[in-house]
């Protein structure tokens, strides 16, 4: 049955997480202003807060699905801060790829590692089929050569899942992903980017120079290059089906924080917000705030929809793009709008609103820009192939 109410259990978990997030938030400004520092794996207050696994114990069929719940958890955490966590869970985007495409052996072997994901190259943005990094089989080793940029948590990760082509002539079909551990000769962390936001979250540039890895480091193990331009690439794309909603949730958690901060400030100044009235019963500020709050709610529901489908084992490629396109734009409008409402206070670094404005901006860019998401949405809607709409 259609329902949007959380179970008592889930509500409790999420409330606890917000308490925790509020503590983590105390450290947010420090790591924003000190870009070279890494947030610790555990905050000083960590002892007082159970791990997420403890909290999640004892959930039943009466509670929301894991996909939905993990979106809500992500929102609760980024509501506190983009980067700082009470307990920093192991695992980056690369681990998701490992889970999605790895063989059982690979999953167990690399379970303990925090893995980044290296896709983008200086020459290619949202178009993975233009990957220039090569992997050539030499005896029982792959030899990897190429450059990667915008590798999220690329500095602190212990390993990385790299997209490389084993056969340029095969286009997308030739693209495979390989797992490379830090310290492997020929794997150089070239530099760390300075960014508009998410400054505590390192973004690295990699160079691979004749970097040799075991043959068994090919993710999924399938070495054959399928005919036509899908195959291996499709496997790789699987990774994105839950990461698009997840990235959307990351941005929306911060947008919610912005709305909460703005609501609080307005309330303290005696600006009333009336849900019953129309245009003629509102002040300009209240009306503007209502619009932003509604936009938040709309985006949130598209995320939950995509996650709910995944929980039911239903395909959610379209819905994942729908929620990311919607949320990527919404979080920009919401943070921009909250600043407009609060005026000079909104741009002061004495408050976190200006940071949320900077931090959310990336979520309409990475894991596929809003334009790419609209492309995917339109292809599904129109029944077009990549060749018919690009």
């Amino acid at each position: 049955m259609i329902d949007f109410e959380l179970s008592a259990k889930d509500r409790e978990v999420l409330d606890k997480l917000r308490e925790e997030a509020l503590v983590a938030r105390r450290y947010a400004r420090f790591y924003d202003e000190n870009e070279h520092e890494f947030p610790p794996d555990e905050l000083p207050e960590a002892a007082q807060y159970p791990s997420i696994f403890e909290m999640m114990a004892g959930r039943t069929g009466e509670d929301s699905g894991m996909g939905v719940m993990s979106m809500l958890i992500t929102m609760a955490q980024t509501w506190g801060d983009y980067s700082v966590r009470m307990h920093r869970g192991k695992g980056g985007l690369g681990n998701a790829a490992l889970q999605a495409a790895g063989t059982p052996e690979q999953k167990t072997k690399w379970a303990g590692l925090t893995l980044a994901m290296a896709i983008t190259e200086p020459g290619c943005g949202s178009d993975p089929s233009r990957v220039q990094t090569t992997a050539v089989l030499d005896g029982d080793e792959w030899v990897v050569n190429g450059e990667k940029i915008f590798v999220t948590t690329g500095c602190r990760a212990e390993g990385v899942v790299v997209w490389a082509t084993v056969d340029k002539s095969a286009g997308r079909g030739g693209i495979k992903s390989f797992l490379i551990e830090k310290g492997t000769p020929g794997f150089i962390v070239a530099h760390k980017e300075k960014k508009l936001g998410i400054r505590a979250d390192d973004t690295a540039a990699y160079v691979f120079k004749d970097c040799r890895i075991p043959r068994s480091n090919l993710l999924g193990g399938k070495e054959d290059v399928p005919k036509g331009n899908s195959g291996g690439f499709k496997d790789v794309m699987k990774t994105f089906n839950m990461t698009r909603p997840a990235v959307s949730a990351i941005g929306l958690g911060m947008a919610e924080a912005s709305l909460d901060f703005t609501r609080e400030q307005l309330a303290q100044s005696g600006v009333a917000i009336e849900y019953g009235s129309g245009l003629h019963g509102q002040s300009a500020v209240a009306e503007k705030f209502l619009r932003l709050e509604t936009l938040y709610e709309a985006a949130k529901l598209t995320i939950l929809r995509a996650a709910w489908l995944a929980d039911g084992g239903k395909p959610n490629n379209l819905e994942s793009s729908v929620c990311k396109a919607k949320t990527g734009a919404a979080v920009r409008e919401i943070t921009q709008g909250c600043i407009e409402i609060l005026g000079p206070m909104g741009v002061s670094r004495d408050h976190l609103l200006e940071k949320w404005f900077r931090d959310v901006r990336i979520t309409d860019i990475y894991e596929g820009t809003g334009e790419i998401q609209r492309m995917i949405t339109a292809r599904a809607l129109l029944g077009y192939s990549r060749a018919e709409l690009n």
Partner: protein
Amino acid sequence: MISFKLTEEQEVVREAMHDFAKSAVRPIARECDEASKLPDAFLVQAAELGLVSTQLPDAFGGGGEPRSPITNAIVAEELAWGDATLAIAMLAPAAFAFAVADQGTEEQKRELLPRFCADVPAAAAIAFVEPGPTFDALLPRCVAEPKGQGFVLSGVKSFVPLGDRASHFLIVARNNGGLDAFIVPREAEGLSVSQPEKNLGLRALSTATLTLERVALPGAARLGGAAGCDVRKLLAHSRAGLASVMVGLSRAVLDYAVPYAKDRVAFDQAIAQKQSIAFRLADMHIETEASRWLTWKAASELEKGGDATRSAHQARSYAAEKSMWISDQGVQVLGGHGFIREHPVEMWYRNARTLGVLEGTVAL
């Protein structure tokens, strides 16, 4: 627990309503608009669906099924996909009947509900809207003065659906400081019902302007009797209802624009292959979805009986803005063909703009 799952019954209802919208509603929508008239035959045919009676208590001849705002949201979307005007015409009496069943006294139920369970159910409507440039649902000018055991009602209501045939109106008015709703029979002394209004859209709805000149009413005319009623709840049910209708309209536009854009060639390609059109269609889909989920959320809160003021406000304001935008883009995608009456899109554009200014009229 968060779930978007329809029950099996809801799946069945949705399919049935979609078939009806496709076979009985959409085909006559244009002629009804051009004639600014509701065919009686259609209302009879619609009555057979039992949209009103099914969810009324069996004690009064109803189907006895519990009122389900969620199911009603699904019904409203499908019917409005066929045509928003005809959908509202079909659903307006339910808004009245549900209000009575939900907030009326036993006496009010006994007197009124059986009329909606008859073979030819009564026509009735909620009167929320008022003319004048600064209308706000919670600030009506229409006022009820207590007089003896009863009230005297004065004011003007506009955009009242089924004005040509409604036997009763539920009139929202100020009542010392607060808000109340009053059941007013068509023949009440001092009430004059105008000829069908001429409006931009929803032309076939034959809406009326009601002028109340010191209409004297017994105390029993006040919905809920001495206790009065919760007008904000009426408003929430109505806003969620309007949102459902807007979602249906938006989906209709998209379903029409997509094949057109794939078919239409310019500069040696289907215009749907151009990013400016393709991405717009994508956004039209995205906003239709988002509007629907907001509407379902409001419906589900209403179904649980809690205060849905906020979620209903959000659903209506969002769906209103997006259905306006979507129908506008629908016209643009069709270009010149979006401007001529050979295609339904220009009608949907008018209907969307008109829907956006309404309150009341329908309810979940």
